[in-house]
């Protein structure tokens, strides 16, 4: 094959959460620039299986950049060198023949390693459980066009809702904070009229649950740099504002509009 690459991979191997991990060095050749990064790992794993060595566990599912299953540190960067791109959408044409690539799992105390490059991100679900929803039991919603939503508001809510929950923001943060994830989830709902009745309790509950699991935000902005969906930092500011307000809102008076 023309233009194929030979690469050296330094891959983190770890048998379980309590085991000691280590880097293993592997060489892969015949890598086409049109392959995705994960397909390059498929090649490595085929080679490992042929030689009787256990394949590397690396998470992925949709391989279209939308499900949020994949993600690892590639040469020290969450999801690798290409901006706004999840690991599964990173292609080998971004690398050169002869490169050495260091591949590690997300690193955060709240994301323990399950095996090799796969981590446990379940604390993200805990944050949603306490308030990442609008209480609307099935069948009770009014007609969809009853409440107009100004287009700019709907579009901004969408920008927040685009979060794929991959955890790159936590992995990239020097404090392992989950502010970008949490703020995106909070603001998706807080920006919409349907989300107003629960706005203050939602913000309070989600932020406080986040703080039980994750570090604190000190405005580095690394999360935004790593985010495959480029979620804006503005949402963190909106959430901080809502959190402060939530502490002094008299919930009994929320029905009053002025």
């Amino acid at each position, binding site marked *: 094959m023309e233009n194929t690459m030979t690469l050296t991979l330094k891959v983190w191997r770890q048998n379980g959460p309590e085991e000691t991990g280590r880097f293993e060095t592997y060489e892969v050749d015949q890598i086409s620039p049109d*392959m995705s990064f994960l397909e390059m790992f498929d090649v490595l794993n085929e080679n490992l299986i042929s030689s009787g060595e256990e394949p590397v566990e690396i998470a992925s599912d949709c391989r279209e950049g939308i*499900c949020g299953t994949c993600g690892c540190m590639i040469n020290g960067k969450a999801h690798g060198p290409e901006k706004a791109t999840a690991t599964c959408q990173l292609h080998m044409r971004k690398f050169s023949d002869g490169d050495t690539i260091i591949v590690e799992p997300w690193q955060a105390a709240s994301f323990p390693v399950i095996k090799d490059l796969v981590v446990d991100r379940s604390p993200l679900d805990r944050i949603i459980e306490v308030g990442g929803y609008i209480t609307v039991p099935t069948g009770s919603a009014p007609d969809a066009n009853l409440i107009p939503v100004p287009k700019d508001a709907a579009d901004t809510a969408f920008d927040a809702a685009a979060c794929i929950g991959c955890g790159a923001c936590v992995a990239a943060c020097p404090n392992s904070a989950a502010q970008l994830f949490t703020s995106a989830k909070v603001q998706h709902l807080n920006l919409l009229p*349907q989300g107003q009745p629960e706005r203050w309790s939602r913000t309070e509950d989600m932020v406080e649950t986040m703080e039980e699991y994750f570090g604190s935000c000190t405005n580095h902005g690394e999360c935004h740099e790593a985010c495959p969906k480029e979620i804006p930092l503005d949402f963190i500011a909106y959430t901080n504002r809502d959190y402060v307000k939530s502490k002094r809102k008299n919930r009994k008076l929320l029905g009053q509009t002025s």
Partner: protein
Amino acid sequence: MIGEINSKIPEGPIGDKWSSHKFNMKLVNPANKRKFEVIVVGTGLAGASAAATLGELGYKVKAFTYHDSPRRAHSIAAQGGINGAKNYQNDGDSVYRLFYDTVKGGDYRSREANVHRLAEVSLNIIDQCVGQGVPFAREYGGLLDNRSFGGAQVSRTFYARGQTGQQLLLGAYSSLMRQVGAGSVEMHTRTEMLDLIVHDGAARGIVVRDLITGDVKSHTAHAVVLATGGYGNIYYLSTNAMACNVTAGWRAHRRGALFANPCYTQIHPTCIPASDEFQSKLTLMSESLRNDGRIWVPRSHDEARTVSDIPEDQRYYYLEEKYPAFGNLVPRDVASRNAKTVVDQGLGVGPLKNGVFLDFADAIKRDGEETIRSRYGNLFQMYERITGEDPYKTPMRIYPATHYTMGGLWVDYELMSNVPGLFVVGEANFSDHGANRLGASALMQGLADGYFVLPYTIGNYLAPLLGESPLDENDPACSTVVNEVAERTQKWLAVNGTRSVDWFHRELGKLVWNFIGMERDKNGLEKALSEIPSLREEFEKDVRVLGTADNLNTSLEKVGRVADFFELAELKARDALERNESCGGHFRTESQTPEGEALRDDEDYAHVAAWEWGGTSNSSIRHKEELTFDNVPLTQRSYK
């Protein structure tokens, strides 16, 4: 062998069937709901919406997913939109029109009663999703926007940029997590269903494997709901996610549930072609691209010039030439089959000659690059990221890929399989799309089943069971199945052959694609039926699964799924062989009009083929459920 199959379609005019059935069904009193336990497997649109709604109603729900979070299910990847007969655009849409279009689009192989119900509840789905905060596209006045999709003549599709599936799933997931927080749903992530427990003629529970610890155990309940998606990964290359599989449904089939119409598969015309042997999946590009792109291949087999040097008269715009009225907008199956024809003739483009051009040069000349960018910017970006080519400068290369499977476990009008207590919702069942699914209807069906159909119909099954406890998890009926599953898992580790699971999956996929793909004929299907079993034997003797069963082991997860795909592949070939007609996504070369269109045989095949497991993969028994069309007259499709 099972007796007569009964679809339980209610009596009465089509528009009254669902409301009268809802009235006639038995109810479970609110205080009694907590006495019933329900298992829901799968947390995509159908599973998450079902589990959330059942939890809200007060049932004790256990939900299972093999993902690390319920939000990852592959519903998330749907791009286009969701249909709802709201008629917000005042263009003459109605429940009846959506019903009519869906029956016709399914090429008259679906049940009228189910489809009408689907169209009715489509209205409630849109309300529900907006209530949850799904950020659908809006007009400047703040009201919802719609578009026409997949050739529909009315604008009834609601959408959220190119990420409608993601937004709807996040809505269903948020409702589900609310119930998890409230304690009414117990969520089991990274837990895969590997068998069904059937005892005294009814579904009593499931056997699952914890994918982290490898523990195999049973969970029992009053009813089991499968929301486990489609079987498109039987082709190896498809637009499905890597882990999508048929195992839950197939294991239920082996325990007695009928599997209906396995030959019905939808092939999507606009996907990015494979770049090499290591291609792991295919990516779909929204078919809205066909609104402005022109599809062509060079007329000459050995065209070596760059695209811009190929003169107009040496370009073969095959869809525009063959179908002047519809041109590049012919339905999915027609577009797909024609692409295959030209590629098979050796006219394909790209390094592997495995695609056709989708060319925007004329559209850019006509409307300007900015207009095209505003319409398709994100799709063009996605294409460039994957292929490294700039579609503003050089035509896209596309080729069809497997996308959705209309077949699945047989269910009656209440979404219950022939095994009492086993319900099947979403893509995993066979019911609403007939032989071909319309664009923007998959999301609608998943949510219809989960939010608005199953939560009512399951009560009709549960009500008489008041006072009965679920099967004891220590009952021999459970431990026998647990042991079988554990042994089956260990067996794969002991084979210690020479080839990986993926190797066998890829080889199986090639057979299925070549012989049970876009076009099927008797010879090919017979060949598939002789080659699949021999490849399976080789697989059983020569597959290599390393590692252990007590730790995360993706190869071990995959091997069982591929084993089930092998058995399904044989059934799929038999089903395609026995259905000696063309309909929708099932095209038999022997049955076509003089113009090369799918030719149905309504006399002999206006029925559902529901297969009963016969003990081995080649002894399945074919049952028929006759379909009647009282409202939508049977006509032949024509796109000339």
